[in-house]
Protein backbone atom coordinates (compact mmCIF):
# COMPACT_ATOMS: atom_id res chain seq x y z
CA UNK A 1 0.00 0.00 0.00
CA UNK A 2 1.27 3.50 -0.82
CA UNK A 3 2.32 5.48 2.17
CA UNK A 4 2.04 9.18 2.61
CA UNK A 5 5.09 11.30 3.39
CA UNK A 6 5.20 12.30 7.07
CA UNK A 7 5.49 15.93 5.98
CA UNK A 8 2.21 15.71 4.04
CA UNK A 9 0.61 13.99 7.01
CA UNK A 10 1.72 16.84 9.26
CA UNK A 11 0.15 19.33 6.87
CA UNK A 12 -3.06 17.29 6.88
CA UNK A 13 -2.95 17.41 10.67
CA UNK A 14 -2.72 21.20 10.49
CA UNK A 15 -5.82 21.37 8.31
CA UNK A 16 -4.18 21.95 4.93
CA UNK A 17 -6.78 21.04 2.35
CA UNK A 18 -4.34 20.56 -0.52
CA UNK A 19 -2.46 18.02 1.57
CA UNK A 20 -5.73 16.28 2.31
CA UNK A 21 -6.49 16.06 -1.40
CA UNK A 22 -3.10 14.40 -1.83
CA UNK A 23 -4.06 11.98 0.92
CA UNK A 24 -7.29 11.12 -0.91
CA UNK A 25 -5.32 10.63 -4.11
CA UNK A 26 -2.90 8.26 -2.37
CA UNK A 27 -5.38 6.14 -0.45
CA UNK A 28 -8.45 6.12 -2.70
CA UNK A 29 -7.68 2.70 -4.12
CA UNK A 30 -7.11 0.72 -0.88
CA UNK A 31 -10.10 2.39 0.76
CA UNK A 32 -12.35 1.78 -2.23
CA UNK A 33 -11.16 -1.82 -2.53
CA UNK A 34 -11.94 -2.51 1.12
CA UNK A 35 -15.38 -0.94 0.80
CA UNK A 36 -16.08 -2.87 -2.38
CA UNK A 37 -14.97 -6.17 -0.86
CA UNK A 38 -17.11 -5.47 2.18
CA UNK A 39 -20.23 -4.16 0.45
CA UNK A 40 -20.01 -5.89 -2.93
CA UNK A 41 -21.54 -2.99 -4.84
CA UNK A 42 -19.77 -0.26 -6.78
CA UNK A 43 -22.09 2.59 -5.89
CA UNK A 44 -22.20 1.68 -2.23
CA UNK A 45 -18.42 1.29 -2.21
CA UNK A 46 -18.05 4.75 -3.75
CA UNK A 47 -20.36 6.31 -1.15
CA UNK A 48 -18.66 4.46 1.68
CA UNK A 49 -15.20 5.55 0.49
CA UNK A 50 -16.31 9.18 0.24
CA UNK A 51 -17.83 8.97 3.70
CA UNK A 52 -14.65 7.38 5.06
CA UNK A 53 -12.53 10.29 3.80
CA UNK A 54 -15.04 12.75 5.22
CA UNK A 55 -14.84 11.06 8.63
CA UNK A 56 -11.06 11.14 8.43
CA UNK A 57 -11.20 14.85 7.55
CA UNK A 58 -13.42 15.56 10.54
CA UNK A 59 -11.47 13.39 12.98
CA UNK A 60 -7.91 13.97 11.85
CA UNK A 61 -7.25 15.75 15.16
CA UNK A 62 -7.84 12.46 16.97
CA UNK A 63 -5.32 10.55 14.86
CA UNK A 64 -2.47 9.19 16.96
CA UNK A 65 0.87 9.56 15.14
CA UNK A 66 2.23 6.43 16.78
CA UNK A 67 -0.21 4.30 14.83
CA UNK A 68 0.30 3.71 11.08
CA UNK A 69 -1.99 6.06 9.21
CA UNK A 70 -3.12 3.44 6.71
CA UNK A 71 -4.38 1.07 9.42
CA UNK A 72 -6.26 3.92 11.12
CA UNK A 73 -7.83 4.91 7.80
CA UNK A 74 -8.80 1.34 6.89
CA UNK A 75 -10.23 0.78 10.34
CA UNK A 76 -12.56 3.75 9.82
CA UNK A 77 -13.56 2.35 6.43
CA UNK A 78 -14.17 -1.14 7.87
CA UNK A 79 -16.29 0.14 10.73
CA UNK A 80 -18.35 2.28 8.38
CA UNK A 81 -18.93 -0.69 6.08
CA UNK A 82 -19.91 -2.90 9.02
CA UNK A 83 -22.47 -0.27 10.05
CA UNK A 84 -23.78 -0.10 6.49
CA UNK A 85 -24.19 -3.86 6.26
CA UNK A 86 -26.03 -3.91 9.57
CA UNK A 87 -28.35 -1.16 8.38
CA UNK A 88 -29.37 -3.09 5.32
CA UNK A 89 -32.75 -4.71 5.60
CA UNK A 90 -32.02 -7.30 2.98
CA UNK A 91 -28.94 -8.40 1.12
CA UNK A 92 -29.12 -8.23 -2.64
CA UNK A 93 -26.41 -10.27 -4.29
CA UNK A 94 -25.59 -8.79 -7.65
CA UNK A 95 -22.91 -10.64 -9.58
CA UNK A 96 -23.22 -8.59 -12.76
CA UNK A 97 -22.04 -5.15 -11.78
CA UNK A 98 -18.34 -5.57 -11.32
CA UNK A 99 -15.80 -2.76 -11.45
CA UNK A 100 -12.57 -2.87 -13.36
CA UNK A 101 -10.13 -5.30 -11.76
CA UNK A 102 -6.47 -4.97 -12.54
CA UNK A 103 -5.16 -8.20 -14.05
CA UNK A 104 -2.00 -9.43 -12.32
CA UNK A 105 1.31 -8.78 -14.05
CA UNK A 106 2.04 -11.03 -16.98
CA UNK A 107 -1.60 -12.03 -17.27
CA UNK A 108 -2.18 -14.15 -20.39
CA UNK A 109 -5.00 -13.77 -22.90
CA UNK A 110 -8.74 -13.17 -22.71
CA UNK A 111 -9.59 -16.72 -21.65
CA UNK A 112 -7.48 -16.48 -18.51
CA UNK A 113 -8.95 -13.03 -17.81
CA UNK A 114 -12.42 -14.49 -18.15
CA UNK A 115 -11.65 -17.22 -15.61
CA UNK A 116 -10.08 -14.67 -13.32
CA UNK A 117 -13.22 -12.54 -13.49
CA UNK A 118 -15.37 -15.57 -12.81
CA UNK A 119 -13.27 -16.45 -9.79
CA UNK A 120 -13.49 -12.87 -8.55
CA UNK A 121 -17.27 -12.99 -8.84
CA UNK A 122 -17.35 -16.19 -6.87
CA UNK A 123 -15.04 -14.78 -4.21
CA UNK A 124 -17.23 -11.69 -3.95
CA UNK A 125 -20.33 -13.88 -3.59
CA UNK A 126 -18.52 -15.94 -0.94
CA UNK A 127 -17.58 -12.82 1.01
CA UNK A 128 -21.23 -11.86 1.06
CA UNK A 129 -22.11 -15.05 2.88
CA UNK A 130 -19.93 -14.01 5.84
CA UNK A 131 -21.06 -11.83 8.70
CA UNK A 132 -19.65 -8.26 8.65
CA UNK A 133 -16.83 -8.79 11.17
CA UNK A 134 -15.72 -12.08 9.60
CA UNK A 135 -15.79 -10.41 6.21
CA UNK A 136 -13.70 -7.48 7.44
CA UNK A 137 -11.19 -9.87 9.00
CA UNK A 138 -10.88 -11.89 5.78
CA UNK A 139 -10.49 -8.77 3.61
CA UNK A 140 -7.86 -7.29 5.92
CA UNK A 141 -5.98 -10.56 6.12
CA UNK A 142 -5.94 -11.50 2.44
CA UNK A 143 -5.97 -8.14 0.66
CA UNK A 144 -3.96 -6.01 3.06
CA UNK A 145 -1.67 -8.55 4.71
CA UNK A 146 -2.69 -7.38 8.15
CA UNK A 147 -1.46 -9.48 11.05
CA UNK A 148 -3.92 -10.97 13.53
CA UNK A 149 -2.88 -8.27 16.01
CA UNK A 150 -3.57 -5.48 13.53
CA UNK A 151 -6.96 -6.93 12.66
CA UNK A 152 -7.79 -7.26 16.35
CA UNK A 153 -6.78 -3.64 16.95
CA UNK A 154 -8.69 -2.34 13.94
CA UNK A 155 -11.90 -4.22 14.62
CA UNK A 156 -11.73 -3.83 18.42
CA UNK A 157 -11.72 -7.59 18.89
CA UNK A 158 -9.53 -9.88 20.98
CA UNK A 159 -6.76 -11.84 19.29
CA UNK A 160 -8.51 -15.15 19.95
CA UNK A 161 -11.75 -13.76 18.51
CA UNK A 162 -9.95 -12.80 15.30
CA UNK A 163 -8.40 -16.25 15.01
CA UNK A 164 -11.69 -18.02 15.58
CA UNK A 165 -13.54 -15.69 13.19
CA UNK A 166 -10.97 -16.29 10.47
CA UNK A 167 -11.12 -20.03 11.04
CA UNK A 168 -14.91 -20.01 10.86
CA UNK A 169 -14.83 -17.87 7.73
CA UNK A 170 -12.28 -20.11 6.00
CA UNK A 171 -14.27 -23.23 6.80
CA UNK A 172 -17.53 -21.66 5.64
CA UNK A 173 -16.00 -20.39 2.40
CA UNK A 174 -14.23 -23.70 1.69
CA UNK A 175 -17.47 -25.63 2.18
CA UNK A 176 -19.43 -23.28 -0.06
CA UNK A 177 -16.67 -23.35 -2.68
CA UNK A 178 -16.64 -27.14 -2.59
CA UNK A 179 -20.45 -27.30 -2.89
CA UNK A 180 -20.38 -24.88 -5.84
CA UNK A 181 -17.72 -26.96 -7.56
CA UNK A 182 -19.88 -30.04 -7.07
CA UNK A 183 -22.99 -28.38 -8.50
CA UNK A 184 -21.00 -26.95 -11.45
CA UNK A 185 -19.66 -30.40 -12.20
CA UNK A 186 -23.21 -31.83 -12.20
CA UNK A 187 -24.44 -29.04 -14.48
CA UNK A 188 -21.57 -29.62 -16.92
CA UNK A 189 -22.25 -33.36 -16.94
CA UNK A 190 -25.95 -32.77 -17.64
CA UNK A 191 -25.04 -30.43 -20.49
CA UNK A 192 -22.71 -33.05 -22.01
CA UNK A 193 -25.33 -35.77 -21.66
CA UNK A 194 -28.05 -33.70 -23.31
CA UNK A 195 -25.73 -32.74 -26.19
CA UNK A 196 -24.77 -36.41 -26.70
CA UNK A 197 -28.45 -37.42 -27.01
Amino acid at each position, binding site marked *: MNNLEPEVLNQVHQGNQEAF*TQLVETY*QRPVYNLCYRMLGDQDEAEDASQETF*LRVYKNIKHYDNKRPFSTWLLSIAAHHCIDQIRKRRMVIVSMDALPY*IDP*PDGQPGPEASFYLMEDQKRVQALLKTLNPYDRAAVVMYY*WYDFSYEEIAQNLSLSLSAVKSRLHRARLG*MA*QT*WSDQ*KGSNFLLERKAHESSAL
Partner: protein
Amino acid sequence: MNHQPYRDWLLSEQDLTVEQSQAMQEHLRSCESCSQIESAWIDLEAVFQKSTQVEPASGFTERWQAHLAEHQAHQQKLRGWWTISVTSLIVTSLLVLLIVQLWSLLQSPDLFWVEWLNRVIGVISIYYTIQNLVSPYSWQIPVFTFIGIFFLVGIISFMSVLWLATYRKFVMVRRAI
Protein backbone atom coordinates in the same frame (compact mmCIF):
# COMPACT_ATOMS: atom_id res chain seq x y z
CA MET B 1 -15.48 -39.71 12.86
CA ASN B 2 -14.07 -36.60 14.50
CA HIS B 3 -13.03 -34.07 11.82
CA GLN B 4 -12.37 -31.14 14.13
CA PRO B 5 -8.60 -31.35 14.74
CA TYR B 6 -7.90 -32.11 11.07
CA ARG B 7 -9.99 -29.18 9.86
CA ASP B 8 -8.25 -26.93 12.35
CA TRP B 9 -4.90 -28.02 11.00
CA LEU B 10 -6.06 -27.67 7.40
CA LEU B 11 -7.32 -24.14 7.78
CA SER B 12 -4.79 -22.74 10.22
CA GLU B 13 -1.40 -21.56 9.10
CA GLN B 14 0.50 -23.21 11.90
CA ASP B 15 3.34 -25.57 11.07
CA LEU B 16 2.45 -29.17 11.80
CA THR B 17 4.73 -31.66 13.47
CA VAL B 18 5.71 -34.80 11.55
CA GLU B 19 3.23 -36.85 13.57
CA GLN B 20 0.41 -34.37 12.99
CA SER B 21 1.19 -34.25 9.29
CA GLN B 22 1.13 -38.02 9.00
CA ALA B 23 -2.11 -38.28 10.96
CA MET B 24 -3.69 -35.67 8.71
CA GLN B 25 -2.58 -37.40 5.48
CA GLU B 26 -4.01 -40.64 6.80
CA HIS B 27 -7.29 -38.96 7.70
CA LEU B 28 -7.53 -37.24 4.31
CA ARG B 29 -7.15 -40.58 2.53
CA SER B 30 -10.10 -42.01 4.42
CA CYS B 31 -12.35 -38.91 4.75
CA GLU B 32 -13.88 -37.55 1.57
CA SER B 33 -15.45 -34.56 3.30
CA CYS B 34 -12.15 -33.28 4.73
CA SER B 35 -10.42 -34.05 1.46
CA GLN B 36 -12.94 -31.86 -0.38
CA ILE B 37 -12.46 -29.08 2.16
CA GLU B 38 -8.71 -29.27 1.66
CA SER B 39 -9.00 -29.15 -2.11
CA ALA B 40 -11.51 -26.26 -1.98
CA TRP B 41 -9.33 -24.29 0.41
CA ILE B 42 -6.25 -24.75 -1.79
CA ASP B 43 -8.28 -23.44 -4.78
CA LEU B 44 -9.66 -20.58 -2.77
CA GLU B 45 -6.28 -19.51 -1.43
CA ALA B 46 -4.94 -19.47 -4.96
CA VAL B 47 -7.83 -17.24 -6.02
CA PHE B 48 -7.18 -14.93 -3.06
CA GLN B 49 -3.55 -14.66 -4.07
CA LYS B 50 -4.53 -13.74 -7.61
CA SER B 51 -7.01 -11.14 -6.38
CA THR B 52 -5.95 -7.58 -6.95
CA GLN B 53 -7.29 -4.35 -5.61
CA VAL B 54 -10.40 -2.93 -7.21
CA GLU B 55 -10.08 0.65 -8.43
CA PRO B 56 -12.71 3.36 -8.09
CA ALA B 57 -14.05 5.01 -11.23
CA SER B 58 -11.80 7.82 -12.47
CA GLY B 59 -12.34 11.27 -10.97
CA PHE B 60 -12.63 10.04 -7.40
CA THR B 61 -10.63 12.97 -6.00
CA GLU B 62 -12.77 15.52 -7.84
CA ARG B 63 -15.91 13.85 -6.53
CA TRP B 64 -14.40 13.93 -3.04
CA GLN B 65 -13.73 17.68 -3.35
CA ALA B 66 -17.30 18.26 -4.46
CA HIS B 67 -18.56 16.09 -1.62
CA LEU B 68 -16.47 18.02 0.89
CA ALA B 69 -17.66 21.38 -0.47
CA GLU B 70 -21.26 20.17 -0.19
CA HIS B 71 -20.66 19.00 3.36
CA GLN B 72 -19.06 22.32 4.34
CA ALA B 73 -21.94 24.28 2.83
CA HIS B 74 -24.37 22.13 4.75
CA GLN B 75 -22.42 22.64 7.97
CA GLN B 76 -22.33 26.40 7.40
CA LYS B 77 -26.06 26.40 6.83
CA LEU B 78 -26.56 24.45 10.05
CA ARG B 79 -24.34 26.89 11.96
CA GLY B 80 -26.35 29.79 10.48
CA TRP B 81 -29.61 28.23 11.59
CA TRP B 82 -28.17 27.52 15.02
CA THR B 83 -27.05 31.15 15.43
CA ILE B 84 -30.43 32.42 14.28
CA SER B 85 -32.23 30.05 16.66
CA VAL B 86 -30.11 31.04 19.66
CA THR B 87 -30.41 34.74 18.84
CA SER B 88 -34.17 34.41 18.42
CA LEU B 89 -34.39 32.61 21.74
CA ILE B 90 -32.42 35.33 23.52
CA VAL B 91 -34.38 38.12 21.85
CA THR B 92 -37.68 36.42 22.69
CA SER B 93 -36.62 35.96 26.31
CA LEU B 94 -35.59 39.61 26.54
CA LEU B 95 -38.86 40.68 24.97
CA VAL B 96 -40.83 38.59 27.44
CA LEU B 97 -38.89 40.17 30.31
CA LEU B 98 -39.46 43.64 28.86
CA ILE B 99 -43.17 42.98 28.43
CA VAL B 100 -43.41 41.76 32.03
CA GLN B 101 -41.64 44.91 33.22
CA LEU B 102 -43.80 47.17 31.07
CA TRP B 103 -46.90 45.34 32.22
CA SER B 104 -46.05 45.92 35.86
CA LEU B 105 -45.29 49.57 35.00
CA LEU B 106 -48.70 49.97 33.38
CA GLN B 107 -50.50 48.15 36.17
CA SER B 108 -48.97 50.11 39.04
CA PRO B 109 -46.39 52.71 38.01
CA ASP B 110 -45.71 53.79 41.60
CA LEU B 111 -44.76 50.33 42.70
CA PHE B 112 -42.52 49.94 39.64
CA TRP B 113 -40.55 53.12 40.40
CA VAL B 114 -40.27 52.20 44.06
CA GLU B 115 -38.86 48.83 43.08
CA TRP B 116 -36.24 50.40 40.79
CA LEU B 117 -35.37 52.96 43.46
CA ASN B 118 -34.80 50.07 45.84
CA ARG B 119 -32.44 48.46 43.38
CA VAL B 120 -30.40 51.66 42.95
CA ILE B 121 -30.27 52.09 46.71
CA GLY B 122 -29.14 48.48 46.95
CA VAL B 123 -26.21 49.13 44.58
CA ILE B 124 -25.26 52.28 46.53
CA SER B 125 -25.43 50.44 49.86
CA ILE B 126 -23.15 47.72 48.41
CA TYR B 127 -20.76 50.50 47.47
CA TYR B 128 -20.78 51.96 51.00
CA THR B 129 -20.33 48.51 52.54
CA ILE B 130 -17.28 47.91 50.37
CA GLN B 131 -15.99 51.39 51.20
CA ASN B 132 -16.37 50.75 54.92
CA LEU B 133 -14.52 47.52 54.55
CA VAL B 134 -11.58 49.10 52.78
CA SER B 135 -11.63 52.46 54.65
CA PRO B 136 -8.88 51.38 57.08
CA TYR B 137 -6.62 51.43 54.04
CA SER B 138 -7.70 55.05 53.33
CA TRP B 139 -8.94 54.06 49.91
CA GLN B 140 -12.02 55.94 48.84
CA ILE B 141 -13.72 56.33 45.49
CA PRO B 142 -16.74 58.48 44.69
CA VAL B 143 -20.08 56.75 44.12
CA PHE B 144 -20.29 57.71 40.44
CA THR B 145 -16.81 56.35 39.79
CA PHE B 146 -17.90 53.09 41.38
CA ILE B 147 -21.00 52.88 39.19
CA GLY B 148 -18.82 53.80 36.20
CA ILE B 149 -16.38 50.99 37.04
CA PHE B 150 -19.35 48.65 37.50
CA PHE B 151 -20.59 49.34 33.97
CA LEU B 152 -17.08 49.40 32.51
CA VAL B 153 -16.34 45.93 33.87
CA GLY B 154 -19.66 44.76 32.44
CA ILE B 155 -18.88 46.18 29.00
CA ILE B 156 -15.34 44.76 29.03
CA SER B 157 -16.71 41.32 29.95
CA PHE B 158 -19.27 41.48 27.15
CA MET B 159 -16.65 42.60 24.62
CA SER B 160 -14.32 39.77 25.72
CA VAL B 161 -17.01 37.19 25.14
CA LEU B 162 -17.77 38.76 21.76
CA TRP B 163 -14.07 38.75 20.84
CA LEU B 164 -13.69 35.10 21.83
CA ALA B 165 -16.72 34.10 19.82
CA THR B 166 -15.51 36.04 16.75
CA TYR B 167 -11.97 34.69 17.06
CA ARG B 168 -13.27 31.11 17.22
CA LYS B 169 -15.47 31.68 14.22
CA PHE B 170 -12.59 33.05 12.13
CA VAL B 171 -10.26 30.24 13.15
CA MET B 172 -12.87 27.67 12.11
CA VAL B 173 -13.39 29.36 8.77
CA ARG B 174 -9.63 29.45 8.11
CA ARG B 175 -9.35 25.75 8.89
CA ALA B 176 -12.13 24.94 6.49
CA ILE B 177 -10.55 26.85 3.58
